[in-house]
């Protein structure tokens, strides 16, 4: 059962680890970065155990769709936070370019910027963590393994997931400074679009949104969702082998709206 625990924990951790890796890179140079992001992760972890403990009650809320409503709300807030971060960063990139004396001001405002990323980290950990807690609790309660083997397996899965997140972070730091900002904001833009698509999928599952087409296309022969690359691309850019039409609409709308917001924020202000 140890290997089973490792694989499942790794799968659940992967998405959160990639998000944390991107957030840590995007927050590079901001004061208190470690404190903010670690704080976000800890809040998320606490929230995930509460969600797991209340899974039964949660499922029965909102006419049996409490889980969907919670996850859709988590994703919607995360999309807004990522959008806000990217637009805010675009505005400040322009100001910094115009007047280096404003650097101090930008740093002083750094805490506002990090609260958005910390929230995204907390939400990602909360979402993936609650499923992990339920799974591990089931293993222990069902006597499927001793505490030691389950703990070893879970730790190994967590370590592997963290390693992928750290790998992404380390890779991002190697990007030349000139391209660094556009790379991290590009990744955050794709992450937000991916989350918007996931949000639509969950609302369709609860029958709160029509699917419009289910699926709109199917590329599972080309790249399956459960392949290693499929899972990675799912977490990073929202790859879905057989998306519903509504998911594609959500993905495109989020992408275009945030990109337009970033473009507008970069335009010179009329009066300052």
């Amino acid at each position, binding site marked *: 059962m140890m290997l089973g625990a490792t694989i499942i924990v790794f799968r659940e951790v992967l998405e959160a680890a990639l998000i944390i890796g991107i957030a840590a890179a995007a927050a590079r140079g901001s004061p208190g970065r470690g404190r903010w992001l670690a704080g976000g992760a800890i*809040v998320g972890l606490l929230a995930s155990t509460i969600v797991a403990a209340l899974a039964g009650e949660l499922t029965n809320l909102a*006419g049996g769709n409490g889980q969907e409503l919670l996850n859709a*709300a988590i994703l919607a807030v995360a999309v807004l936070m990522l959008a806000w971060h990217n637009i805010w960063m675009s505005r400040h990139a322009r100001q910094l370019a115009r007047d280096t004396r404003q650097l101090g001001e930008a740093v002083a405002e750094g805490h506002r910027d990090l609260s958005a990323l910390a929230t995204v980290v907390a*939400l990602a950990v909360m979402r993936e963590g609650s499923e992990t807690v*339920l799974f591990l609790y*089931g293993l222990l309660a069902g006597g499927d393994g001793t505490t030691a083997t389950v703990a070893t397996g879970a730790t190994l899965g967590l370590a592997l997931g963290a390693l992928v997140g750290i790998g992404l972070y380390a890779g991002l730091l190697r990007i030349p400074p000139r391209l660094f900002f556009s790379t991290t904001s590009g990744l955050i833009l794709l992450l937000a679009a991916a989350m918007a698509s996931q949000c639509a999928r969950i609302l369709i*599952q609860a029958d709160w949104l029509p699917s419009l087409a289910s699926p709109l296309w199917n590329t599972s022969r080309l790249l399956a969702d459960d392949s290693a690359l499929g899972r990675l691309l799912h977490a990073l850019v929202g790859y879905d082998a057989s*998306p519903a039409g509504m998911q594609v609409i959500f993905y495109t709308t989020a992408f275009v709206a945030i990109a337009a917001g970033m473009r507008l924020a970069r335009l010179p202000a009329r009066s300052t």
Partner: protein
Amino acid sequence: MNHLASCLAIIVALPVLMPVARADEPDARLTIRNHRFEPEELHVPAGQKIRLLVTNLDASAEEFESHELNREKVIPGSGSASLYLGPLAPGRYPFIGEFHESSARGSVVAE
């Protein structure tokens, strides 16, 4: 952390504040017993939306997951949960219980 705390509070409060009545009968049923699905082959009509009710008789939670159906939902231990599928094109759509993947396997057959 104010920002973060208020976001989390809103998110947690939402499901409580939005009770939606859904008394309609499910179109299909699955039961989980000893980490296996019953039936392992579930026949449903193609071309229409299906409300699937999954009842978990085991004490531990399970996650109903299917990439082919594009669905994922936690079924609490000794509880049940429903989700909507399709409308599906005729065909076979495998699903698994992610927490007990070696035994919990089945397929939805749309026809």
